[in-house]
């Protein structure tokens, strides 16, 4: 049983010219087996939260704490966080030319598992996971994310989720850019991860449609850099019908 605990998290985004506060006190606890959906308007800071948890250098934590099973996540380097069991499926996965997907996956699995997986079982494992996600075999030889379509990139993020089996997974808009069939395949992948690994999921999304496939235990509304309301799945229904208007001090929401 793992628990990610976020307490009063304040984060600045650091650019060349200035630094600006984006997260203004986020409180959230995600445990194994739970699925939390975070929904909120554009620019409210959802990705900032995701990147801050992963340790992206552009985002500076100014106060608050993040712990995973009591360990101080903020004191860990980016790779240490991943090895501790945190995973971020990115909204915009990065292309890494020259590094083949298969080499990348094996290197990552070796790092996270602490030893190189045995070749034969590894090959089988990867093949099966790719098949489950409708990814054709030729992708193994292609450079990481290079020239992948938006949907292909998202599938590969979930492929990594399957293979790295983190304790807690943050999925940043994994559903955007997917057609209905792909959405189902990717959702199945997330559900499989949850079932196999008893993982905790923090699902960031704009739309309720993915919540038909991945059922959240909790729904949080994110606005102005913090969680402004939390509830059960019914909160998602309300957002679907009324938008974010009531949470954004009367300004029309951009959804």
């Amino acid at each position, binding site marked *: 049983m793992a628990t990610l605990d976020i307490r009063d998290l304040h984060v600045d985004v650091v650019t060349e010219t200035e630094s600006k506060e984006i997260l203004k006190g986020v409180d959230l606890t995600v445990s194994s087996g739970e699925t939390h959906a975070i929904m909120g308007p554009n620019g409210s800071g959802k990705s900032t939260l995701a990147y801050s948890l*992963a*340790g*992206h*250098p552009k985002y500076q934590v100014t106060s608050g704490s993040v712990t995973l099973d009591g360990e101080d996540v903020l004191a860990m*380097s*980016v*790779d240490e*966080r*991943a*090895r501790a069991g945190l995973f*971020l499926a*990115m909204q915009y*996965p*990065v*292309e*890494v*030319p*020259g*590094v*083949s997907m298969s*080499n*990348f996956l094996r*290197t*990552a699995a070796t*790092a*996270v598992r602490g030893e190189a997986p045995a070749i034969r079982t590894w090959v089988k494992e990867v093949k099966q996971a790719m098949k489950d996600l409708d990814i054709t075999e030729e992708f193994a030889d292609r*450079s*990481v994310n290079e020239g992948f379509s938006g949907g292909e990139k998202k599938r590969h993020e979930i492929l*990594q989720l399957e293979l*790295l089996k983190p304790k807690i997974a943050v999925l940043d808009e994994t559903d955007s850019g997917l057609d209905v069939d792909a959405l189902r395949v990717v959702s199945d992948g997330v559900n499989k991860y949850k079932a196999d690994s008893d993982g905790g999921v923090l699902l960031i999304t704009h739309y309720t449609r993915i919540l038909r496939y991945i059922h959240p235990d909790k729904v949080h509304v994110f606005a102005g850099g913090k969680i402004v309301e939390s509830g059960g799945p019914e909160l998602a229904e309300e957002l679907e019908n009324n938008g974010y208007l009531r949470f954004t001090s009367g300004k029309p929401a951009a959804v």
Partner: protein
Amino acid sequence: MTQAPNVSGALETSDRVASHLHPEGSFDVADHPVPSGKEEWWRFTPMRRLRGLQTDAPFAAGGCTVTVQAPAPATVSQVSIDDPVTRESGFAPTERVSARAWNAVDEATLVDIPAEAELDQPIYLRHTGNGSDVATAGHAVIRAGRHSKATVVLEFSGSATVADTVQVIAGDGAQLTVVAMLEWADDAVHHSAQHIKVGRDAKVKHAVLTFGGDLVRVPVSVDYDGPGGDVELLGLYYADEGQYLEHRIFVDHAKPNCKSDALYKGALQGKGARTVWVGDVLIRKAAEGTETYEMNRNLLLTEGARADSVPNLEIETGEIAGAGHASATGRFDDEQLFYLLSRGIPEPVARRLVVRGFFGEILLRLGVPDVVERASAIIERELAVTGN
């Protein structure tokens, strides 16, 4: 030759030579004034670090020890510089360093691969420098007979100050690979003018792998002797703190239906690491059906390094099969690094993945197992230097 003696950097206007970057050559040193460094041809080179190779630095014998390994029926021998074979490739020095190198030797080393011979092992010429105080001149001619198949590896290591000439003659239908592997010590200076004449339907792969040296400058030029010639020019360089590595290619397409494909890749790390790549492909009127591509990519691994990259393409006929050039210089990308780290991969491993991937394409195309293995090992060592 109808033109006045060559002046590097002068605008060339004869009918035959339209490329201002590559004036006609001359064997007479007096025809080549001492370059100031402002000439187009020299504009990147730190002239003071050439140790007088471009002025009057005396040449002495014995600067390098050479060992030869030549599987039969190939032969390696010394021939007089006046032997007609030294004029066979059509090369003539276009600047003072090469002209001086030409005139400083009495003999050239001739690597002769008989017609139709197929060698299953590479020929090696291993040069070991004995010190960089005195300059040394060298001259090698590699002649691959018609329909022969061979690989020649020229290795350079140790300390030395060298100006040399490498001429490659690929006979009709020959398949020849020539690799220059520069593993010089940190204090070496090497200027190497290399010229390739490509016979009808011959296939030549030429590679320069540059790792060591304080200053290395390798201009490579290509001429076609008939239609159907196919040349692949590969380059891999890795510049450390304070190193200056310059590579130039000039491909002169004057015959129809020939191909050229150039790919040079460089990595730079450390303060003052500096590389220059200048690519020039000229497609003359007669060269219909030409297919050419040139590409240079540089990867800046740390702050304080600088890579210049200048691809040129001059086209004088509309009847070509395809022509392209590209160049890109990028920093080691923070977002790429973050992505790899976020999957648990430690930073040194992540950097190695990216650099190996970057050079992988060249090594794959090079395909000479022994050289590839050693180059990979050197790259790993270089990566360890900065604790990457």
